């Protein structure tokens, strides 16, 4: 009896040891790479941190945040990020859902189409940005309409936001398409067939059967596209580099300098590390709030339907 108890205890000890051993590498990497820099980052945003000096940064209160809100470039950046984010969010989802309907139909070449629509997703934003810079600058003006010759996408501030949205939709829609596609595969075919025998039109089947049935998928895709839209960086850097410049409240600013790029420029170009850190914290809070609102809204819809 005592013997048995002892082996039980040994086993428990061994189990605990495995638990710790198996958890440690992941927790350690996570702590050292994300958790510590995250809390440091929040702290630095309240100091005069310069990114390099070894002396401890001095606490300065809310000055960096006040400076951030005084910066008209940053305010414009927040505004254009919101505009771009909404355009991109809507565009990606409409295109992706449309493509998913197309490749889950009975078309002959659907596998090839699916591969083609997905392909841009494998290519990095930096590389895609350069390719599309060429397309907007050199290919678009050759289109047989005078409009394309007088309205250059990367020169006109309003159009350049659309240029970004088109490019990032081209890149991202294929991935979201795959998610919609997988969900559409799970909609039972006999249900759709019997509905169509009962005289339901294509549109009715789509809105009354298909879309409610894949509601949980919308929670995922909307979350993914929303955060992707607001976090765009690579494509902006290589496609427009924030430009073209325009006037905003009497000051020259960059028309497509999205928040992620503005933060990068504040730190890496203007060398204002602490202000960049404050902007990054604000960016994080805004993203968290928007994502939270969006998921709770779609979750509610999911339950209702």
């Amino acid at each position, binding site marked *: 009896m005592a013997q048995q108890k002892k082996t039980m205890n040994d086993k428990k000890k061994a189990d605990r040891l495995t638990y710790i051993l198996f958890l440690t590498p992941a927790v350690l*990497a996570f702590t050292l790479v994300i958790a510590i820099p995250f809390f440091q*980052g929040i702290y630095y945003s309240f100091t005069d941190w310069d990114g390099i000096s070894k002396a401890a940064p001095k606490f300065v209160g809310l000055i960096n945040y006040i400076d951030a809100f005084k910066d008209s470039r940053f305010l414009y950046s927040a505004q254009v990020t919101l505009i771009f984010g909404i355009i991109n969010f809507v565009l990606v989802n409409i295109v992706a859902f449309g*493509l998913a309907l197309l490749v889950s139909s009975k078309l002959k070449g659907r596998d090839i189409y699916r591969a083609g629509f997905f392909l841009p997703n*494998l290519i*990095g934003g930096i*590389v895609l940005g350069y390719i599309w810079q060429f397309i907007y600058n050199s290919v678009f003006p050759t289109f047989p309409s005078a409009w394309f010759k007088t309205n250059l996408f990367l020169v006109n501030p309003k159009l350049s936001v659309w240029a970004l949205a088109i490019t990032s939709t081209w890149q991202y829609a294929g991935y979201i398409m795959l998610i919609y596609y997988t969900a559409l595969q799970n909609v039972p075919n006999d249900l759709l067939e019997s509905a169509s025998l009962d005289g339901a039109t294509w549109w009715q089947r789509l809105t009354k059967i298909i879309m409610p049935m894949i509601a949980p998928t919308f929670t995922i895709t909307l979350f993914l596209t929303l955060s992707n839209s607001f976090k765009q960086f690579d494509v902006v850097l290589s496609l427009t580099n924030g430009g073209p410049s325009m006037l905003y409240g009497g000051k020259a600013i960059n028309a497509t300098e999205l*928040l992620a790029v503005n*933060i990068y420029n504040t730190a890496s170009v203007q060398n204002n590390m602490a202000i960049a850190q404050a902007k990054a914290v604000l960016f994080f809070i805004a993203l968290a709030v928007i994502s939270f609102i969006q998921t709770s809204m779609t979750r509610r819809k999911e339950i209702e339907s």
Partner: protein
Amino acid sequence: MSKRKFWALIGELAAILLFLVYVSPLILVLFNSSKTSGQIILNPISAPSDWGLLWKNIQSVFGNTVVNYGGAFKSSLIITFGSLVFIILFSSMAAWVIVRNKSKFSNFIYYCFIAMMVVPFQVVMYPLVSWFKKMSDVVTIPLFGFSLLRSYPGAIFAYIGFGISMSVFMYCGFIKGIPYEIEEAATIDGCSKVQVFNRIILPMLKPITVTVSILNGIWIWNDFLLPLLILGKGNTIQTIPLTVSNFVGSYVKQWDMILTSTLLAIIPVLIFFLIAQKNIIKGMSEGAVKS
């Protein structure tokens, strides 16, 4: 019936048209990589008259002294595969013990991983660089003789940290679906915990491992900002996106060179896609649904 056929035809035509529009940017890259700068300005949408120019352009990109494409390819391979091995190993191990040991502490760790998925890279990136500098000075240089900045171990370590949250999350979802009875049976047969993991769990994780590898692999291979900050400019270790960006920076509007360099960046990805297309599409769609 004929009405249905008519719509099927319209659908097929629309699909082909959309497909062409979708791949046309890539076709244009190929076309214009086989032209001279002057030819591109003259007509950027025509097929090239002399495909031999493609080879010549590729040679000039490789011959450029500013960048080293061969070296960049090697660096990208080392960083991507090095990171993947550790991400897969560490996150599957962690996920397994988190799922199988239900406790407050396990839950806490799990929610820490999830919570950090919302944090944008911008909040962490600059503190990370200075923190890596500190860790290098105090720990890695005196103990192991390498710095975490401008080095492979540093880049790989950073990717492990950033990749682990989502990967643990995906492995947890998958492991929850594996019946515990299998493990119990193995334990009764005398397997230790480590053996259970190596011999039973790890082989069963293959489908989700494919998904985790593809999602992380695409991200790491194409990532720009992290290697820019961790590896730095002017380093001999440069990934492909960094190299393309450096190369383009040295050629203002010389589209023959720029497009050839993007073509060279696309080719490895394209070959990989053609070989593993089925796995990639399956892995991407399944992974997304689980997360």
